[in-house]
Structures are given as structure tokens and as C-alpha cells.
């Protein structure tokens, strides 16, 4: 029994294939989905998604969205997604440092929130690369 995984972003269909297992980060922590899971609808946080394909784990960075799981069909809708293998480690590290610097000098509530979001995004991308290697 395999799960049919579909990851969609506004710009394109990001991923569409059968997988054996996925690990998803939600607002309330990470959940693992195996075949024949009960139907759930959940919010997806800015974090990494790991999928098990033919006994090989792949990592992706997801930037917030929703997931619906039912009948061995998983549909994940996110604002943006990047495959771990597509992220350049140097660039991700730099983005992380820039985000941290921005957070430190952010003033006012709005800038702090934005800087926080940027930081989490950068951190997720760095994590996505690190988990593979």
C-alpha cells in the first residue's frame, strides 16, 4: 500500500508521486503519515517535509500551507516549496546569516514579525540541506 502524494504551490505542481511514508511539520509538531491513516486536515508550518521513496528519504522545505490526508491520498498546498537537492548550501547559509542580522536590527512590531518569518524560512532551507547530507 502506498500513499499518493501531491504537493502544490501557486505557481506549479511541485510533486506528484507515490510514496511509502511522509513526515510533516505542523503547527503542533511533526506528524508521521503511514498508509491507511485516518482522514485529517491540518495546517502546515514553515518546516521540512520528509518523504520515503523506495527506501530513500528526500527532504523538502515547505513555507506554510495546508495538508489534507484521506484514503491514502495526501494533498499538500503550500505558499512555496523547495527540494533539498535544489538548495545551494552556501546561499542558504548566507541567507540565514542575513536573516539573523535583520532580526537583530528590526524595529517595531511589523519588522520584527517579518524578520522572524524570514529567519524561519532561511533556517528551514538550511535544515533541508543538512538532513540529506
Amino acid at each position, binding site marked *: 500500500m502506498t500513499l499518493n502524494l501531491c504537493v*502544490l*504551490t501557486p505557481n506549479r505542481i511541485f510533486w506528484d508521486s507515490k510514496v511509502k511514508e511522509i513526515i510533516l511539520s*505542523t*503547527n503542533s509538531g511533526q506528524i508521521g503519515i503511514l498508509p491507511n491513516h485516518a482522514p*485529517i*486536515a491540518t*495546517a502546515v508550518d514553515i518546516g521540512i517535509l520528509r518523504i520515503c521513496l523506495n527506501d530513500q528519504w528526500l527532504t523538502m522545505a515547505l513555507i506554510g500551507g495546508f495538508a489534507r490526508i484521506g484514503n491514502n491520498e495526501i494533498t499538500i*498546498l503550500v505558499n512555496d516549496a523547495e527540494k533539498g537537492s535544489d538548495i545551494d548550501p552556501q546561499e542558504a547559509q548566507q541567507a540565514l546569516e542575513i536573516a539573523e542580522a535583520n532580526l537583530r536590527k528590526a524595529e517595531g512590531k511589523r519588522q520584527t514579525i517579518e524578520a522572524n518569518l524570514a529567519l524561519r524560512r532561511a533556517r528551514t532551507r538550511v535544515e533541508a540541506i543538512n538532513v540529506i547530507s
Partner: protein
Amino acid sequence: MAMAALRREGRRFASLISPRPITAVRSSPLYPTLEDEGPLGLRHISTQVVRNRMKSVKNIQKITKAMKMVAASKLRAIQTKTENSRGLWQPFTALLGDLPSADVKKNVVVTISSDKGLCGGINSTSVKISKGLHKLNSATGPEKETKYVILGEKAKAQLVRDSKKDIELIITELQKNPLNYTQVSVLADEILKNVEYDALRIVFNKFQSVVSFVPTVSTVLSPEIVEREAESGGKLGDLDSYEVEGGETKGEILQNLAEFQFSCTMFNAVLENACSEQGARMSAMDSSSRNAGDMLDRLTLTYNRTRQASITTELIEIISGASALEG
């Protein structure tokens, strides 16, 4: 004397030519009229007038051909984006259902139209449908109200005339920067913040093919209505069977879900409408350049006829003058 008479004739026919509509050119009485008039003037229209007209029609044809090419290339660019975004709102419809018949008190009609004109009839159809929705909702009960949110200049021009008090928000110049999701989600955010709603109906033209644009209405329901419909069973009944995780309460998740659904549906609607606009403009400019070509053909015939008539009259004058001298 003769020259003054000719000039008078020329002016008379110049005023006849300019405001003539294209359809009237087809009718045959036109040419006999032009050539019948004026017992005095032998040259009926001067070739100069016809030549000027031909030049302007040729310019129009060039411009419309160029506009068609531009629209075709813009269409190609946007079409791939639209097709990719189509997959986005389908899971929402699968989960939450698209219930255009939901009975709600506060309706908001989001009309999407273009900013620029010369794109055929798509904007008028969208406005007609929006007005129809408005009427439908107010006809079913007095406490129901319908408000408009307008995107695009063309719908604004048409709706401001008779429904000014019902308009909540007007947004124009969407296409200055290439369309992307962040921009549309900011827009969706604005709308959700400022407008109270039970159901949002997005009216746009769906792009079926380069020649067919179907006006469509997508409905997005607010979370309270979704709860209500889910409890009453029917299409949304199996929403309850889903365990909702990832947040404090189910209500909060549904709220976020509804907002996300709205911004995704908006994104798709705006892209589809942009595609339809370019497609409609392409076909409008194409038929316009074809009409200009037809007009040019007819004007060329008139020109040749006029030219030959003037040559003939000159010859007659010379010959009659010569024979008068001899005999």
C-alpha cells in the same frame, strides 16, 4: 467659377465620407449616391480625399495587426502560469465543496475585469453577471445585501454608474507588474480585512481556449457558513469526518483554510481573466484588421474609378476644345 463649384463639391463629399460607419459601406446605394450627386461637378470626389482615407485605413490595419501580435505573445506567457495554477484550487473544492446555492445574508461579489479596452465583450459579460447576482440575491429577501469589490478599470466604469452605493473596494492597475501569488494574496488579505462577508462570489472569465471564454462564478464561503452546511449534511457532510489538527481549535484552522482558499481562488481567477483578456483582444484585433483590409479594397476600387473618371473628363475637355478650334 468651375473651380469654385468643384471645390464646393469636394467639401460636400468630404463631409459625406468621414462619419460613414463601416457597415454602411457594404450597401450598394453608397456608390451610386456618390456618383449621382452634383449635376455641376464632373469630378465627383477628388482623388486626394480618397488617397488620404486609404492611408489612414492602412495605418489602422498596421496598428491592429501589431496589437494582435503583442496580445498573442502575452497570452503565451500567461497561459502556462494559468494552467499551473489550476491544480491549486481543486483540492479546496474537493474538501469544502463549491456551493453557489448557499443561502447567505451577506454576499460579496468580486468582479474581475481588465484595465485596458479593445478586448471584445468579456468585461460587459462579467458586469452583466455581477449585476444579475446582485438582483438574484436582493430578490430573495430584504435582509440580504450584496456588495461589490471591483478589480479593473472597465468594470469600475460600468458599475459606478448605477450601483455606486454598493461598491466596497475598487482596485486597479493589477497588471503593472507580472502577476504573482504574493501580490494576489496581499490583495485578498485587504479584501478580507475590509469587507464583512458570508459568501464571496468571484466573477471572472475562464479561459477555455483561444476563442472561447466562459464567464464563471467561484464561491468561497466563510467558516461559519461552512460549519453550518457541514452540520446539515449534504455535500460538506464528510468534512466532519476529517480530524483537524495543527492549531488550537478547529475554528481557527477553518478560518485560515478559508482565507487560503480565497487567495488561491483569486489567484487562479485573476490569471484566467488575464488570459481571456489577451485572447479576446487577439480576436478583436484580428477581425478589426480584416475589416480594415476589406475597406482598403473597396477604397482602392473607388480611387481607381475616380482617377479614370478624371482622366476621361480631361480628355473630353481637350478633344472638345480642339474640335471647337477646328470646326
